[in-house]
């Protein structure tokens, strides 16, 4: 049997990852320093072809013929488990019906994400891209080992052996064997370090239709999410958090809480007061009965309106320069026409369907088992270890299916892991602790997409060509103060605030992009497509405004600026063609088409939205999308991700916003922060650009273009520019 090598506990790595665990203000704070040099090499495009083939880490073949692919990433719905298994199974020539998957343990030496350097984790739409060569090599090596075993057993040359759909054959001697029959002998073969990879023309599963590996378990109730973990003797914990970010516990009266039936304990931890009970309902009832006085002296007590006003005031002053070319101000001064625009963006909650939760169980030997939707394994393992006072080899992660994430589970401080661990510590590890954040905890718990403002100014010459572009952005940096700061932040400029703007593919003769890092106490985080959630709206709506000011067709105008971006141009052309874009066709009153095109995470997406505008109301009828993600590993999963991106992002275009009143979050559940519903879902058509380029990701890139395509369609339908999100529909006048 080919099996996974026993993972070597990465004890030495603790030094590399733990900059130091210190006790500050009663809270165990774990500082990380990641090696920026290593990360830079990885981010610059590591030479993946030089990777050793590691079949033992990624595939097990059992005597019953099942092929189990080890998945080093989190699957939060994006279908990467199916994609990763497809890549390996294709090179292995496995029978898809026998392919199973299992989530990898935490082991950054075997399972790091090459885009994250030495960290195992999932994000930035990197799962398929960083695994492409690794899993092809693993599959090809395992295939070669099966062939070698058969050749040895049959005493025939390996070159005469063929493999198809889980069966190894030697035609001349009419012999064949199933994978399961050869597995044990294959495991004894040397691992070929340079196995021959298929020519793309030989792919059988890649580019075709394979059923998702999770469709059955997710339709009969058997799929286990971390909220479904039930360990013997476990207690469920619900935590009372400060209603204001940065607030701490001043005093607790837990008498009434302890009297609630089912409540077994109440403990104060760095992040609040945890009520432990025999079931979730009792824990929630116990929390309602708690009387906690909070110390708000270090808390954020402003309202979101006040924070926004501060942002806008700071935008009047020069910021840090993120990118510049020529004299943008001078070029604009001499222009025939000057356009200005401001775009504001609210805080957004991820609001994944499965609220945050984790379970930690202490084993008899003092080590720990963690059950969660692990998304930054290396950091989560280290944070749990530090909070429990053990080395990382004493912490085993068991990754479960995640009920969505949209970025929230990948928190650089592993917040809810630390909270679970602190409850285990406070209760002495007596019983496994199952931490449950209610929907209200999840939505009001911070780590939002930052509140951002963009201010733009551009000049056009007499022919409508852009002369210069000035662009100033303010938002709280996601990266400053995290383990990733040294990798992502250069001279104070956080790339995740300006990505998609300061690196625009549009040919601008002169430009200046500036950024301010907002100072505020609201925790912020990446939210499906990160900076692109706002930069694409600012860029793609403003370019549309310039096109109209120039009297040009918006598609042709963009193509004229995209000479240096052939893949984005081709994607835009395909979307326009499939949507029936016709600049000569007169717009129907109250109904319009809008276009947007944007690159993110190395993938190219263009969308054309068809919108009907009425007084105070917008109906998105249809969205036609084109995507270029390089080789399309699972075309149907790619289509599903773009359809889903539309459904996910639509409510953020139409209505979602998190607001604070005197520091207290006002939207706490789906009634006040309402996701898109069935009746609002437009028809989505997805077209994939054929490509032989290395595959990139599609978990996020469908999101950024939806808002600007809708905004631009509303302009086409009504002549009104709605720039800020969510769209200010109150003042919209329809046909």
């Amino acid at each position, binding site marked *: 049997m080919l099996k996974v090598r026993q993972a070597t506990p990465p004890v030495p790595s603790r030094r590399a990852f733990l900059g130091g665990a210190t006790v500050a203000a009663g809270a165990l704070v774990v500082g990380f320093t990641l090696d920026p040099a290593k990360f830079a090499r990885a981010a610059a495009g590591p030479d993946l072809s030089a990777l050793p083939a590691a079949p033992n880490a990624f595939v097990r073949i059992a005597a019953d013929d099942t092929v189990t692919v080890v998945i080093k990433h989190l699957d939060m719905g994006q279908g990467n488990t199916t994609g990763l298994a497809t890549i390996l199974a294709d090179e292995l020539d496995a029978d898809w019906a026998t392919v199973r998957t299992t989530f990898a343990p935490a082991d950054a030496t075997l399972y790091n994400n090459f885009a994250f350097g030495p960290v195992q984790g999932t994000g930035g739409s990197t799962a398929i891209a960083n695994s492409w060569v690794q899993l092809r090599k693993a599959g090809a090596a395992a295939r070669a080992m099966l062939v070698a075993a058969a050749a040895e057993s049959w005493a025939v040359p390996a070159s005469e052996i063929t493999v198809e759909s889980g069966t190894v054959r030697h035609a001349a001697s009419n012999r064949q064997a199933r994978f399961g029959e050869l597995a044990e002998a294959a495991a004894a073969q040397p691992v070929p370090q340079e196995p021959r990879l298929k020519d793309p023309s030989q792919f059988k599963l890649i580019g075709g239709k394979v059923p998702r590996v999770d469709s059955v378990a997710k*339709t009969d109730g058997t799929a286990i999410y971390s909220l479904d973990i039930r360990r013997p003797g476990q207690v469920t914990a619900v935590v009372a958090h400060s209603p204001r970010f940065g607030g701490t516990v001043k005093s607790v009266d837990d008498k009434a809480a302890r009297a609630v039936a089912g409540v077994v304990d109440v403990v104060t931890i760095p992040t609040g007061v945890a009520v432990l009970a025999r079931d979730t309902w009792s824990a929630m009832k116990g929390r309602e009965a708690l009387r906690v006085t909070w110390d708000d002296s270090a808390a954020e007590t402003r309202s979101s309106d006040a924070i926004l006003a501060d942002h806008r005031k700071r935008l009047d002053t020069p910021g840090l320069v993120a990118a510049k070319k020529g004299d943008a101000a001078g070029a604009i001064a001499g222009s025939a026409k000057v356009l200005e625009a401001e775009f504001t963006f609210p805080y957004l909650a991820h609001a994944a369907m499965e609220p945050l939760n984790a379970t930690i169980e202490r084993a008899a030997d003092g080590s720990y088992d963690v059950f969660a939707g692990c998304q930054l394994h290396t950091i989560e393992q280290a944070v749990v270890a530090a909070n429990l006072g053990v080395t990382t080899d004493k912490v085993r992660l068991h990754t479960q299916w995640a009920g969505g994430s949209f970025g929230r589970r990948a928190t650089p401080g592993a917040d809810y892991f630390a909270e679970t661990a602190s409850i285990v510590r406070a209760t002495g590890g007596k019983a496994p602790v199952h931490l449950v954040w209610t929907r209200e905890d999840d939505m009001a718990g911070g780590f939002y997409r930052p509140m951002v403002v963009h201010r733009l100014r551009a000049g056009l010459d007499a022919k409508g060509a852009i002369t210069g572009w000035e662009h100033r952005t303010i938002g709280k940096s996601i990266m400053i103060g995290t383990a990733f700061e040294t990798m992502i932040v250069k001279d104070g400029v956080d790339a995740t605030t300006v990505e998609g703007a300061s690196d625009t593919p549009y040919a601008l003769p002169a430009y200046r992009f500036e950024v301010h890092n907002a100072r505020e106490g609201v925790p912020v985080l990446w939210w499906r497509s990160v900076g692109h959630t706002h930069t694409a709206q600012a860029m793609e709506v403003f370019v549309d405004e310039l096109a109209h000011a120039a009297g040009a067709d918006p598609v042709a105008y963009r193509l004229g600026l995209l000479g240096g971006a052939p893949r984005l141009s081709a994607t835009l052309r395909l979307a326009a063609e499939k949507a029936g874009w016709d600049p000569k066709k007169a717009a129907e009153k109250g109904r319009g088409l809008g276009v947007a095109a944007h690159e993110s995470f190395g993938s190219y997406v263009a969308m054309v939205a068809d919108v009907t505008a009425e007084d105070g109301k917008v109906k998105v009828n249809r969205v036609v999308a084109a995507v270029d993600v390089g080789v399309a590993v699972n075309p149907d999963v790619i289509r599903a991700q773009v359809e889903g991106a539309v459904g996910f992002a639509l409510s953020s275009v139409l209505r979602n916003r998190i607001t604070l009143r005197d520091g207290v979050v006002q939207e706490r559940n789906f009634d006040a922060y309402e996701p898109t519903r069935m009746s609002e879902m437009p028809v989505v058509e997805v077209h994939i650009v054929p490509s032989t380029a290395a595959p990139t990701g599609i978990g996020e890139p469908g999101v950024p273009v939806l808002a600007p395509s809708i905004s631009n369609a509303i302009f086409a339908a009504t002549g009104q520019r709605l720039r800020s999100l969510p769209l200010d529909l109150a003042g919209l006048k329809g046909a």
Partner: protein
Amino acid sequence: MLKLTVNGVAHTVDADPEMPLLWALRDHLNQTGTKYGCGIAQCGACTVHLDGQPVRACQTRIGDIGAAKITTIEGVSGKVADAVRSAWRGLDVVQCGYCQSGQIMSAIGLLSENAKPTDADIDGAMDGNVCRCGTYQRIRAAIHEAARSLA
């Protein structure tokens, strides 16, 4: 002690009659296919059938159930359930899948009452079920497909 009949099996539950069925199923009976999403009947992730009718388990107190038969995603069966599951799998509807137990229970409820639902019927029956991954287009197609296969 309360008696509950879940998927044809009688159980006794030692819990407050005020406890929502959702938590009795998940925490006392280890039937975790029924999901918690919001607790206020805004998302439909906890949809189960009470005597064949879709209800939100987060709003159904166990003390109020009496002899009614509870059916969850783990136990729902029959021609309509088979057709719905088969359509869901054939179209690979699921993404994260967390809401899909509730979606499927609502869809089975719809198709049990209405053999050939229109798009407007689907909007009406399914608007209470949130899918944050945005799989609505495929849910709609799967319901139509299941209806076709049952015709």
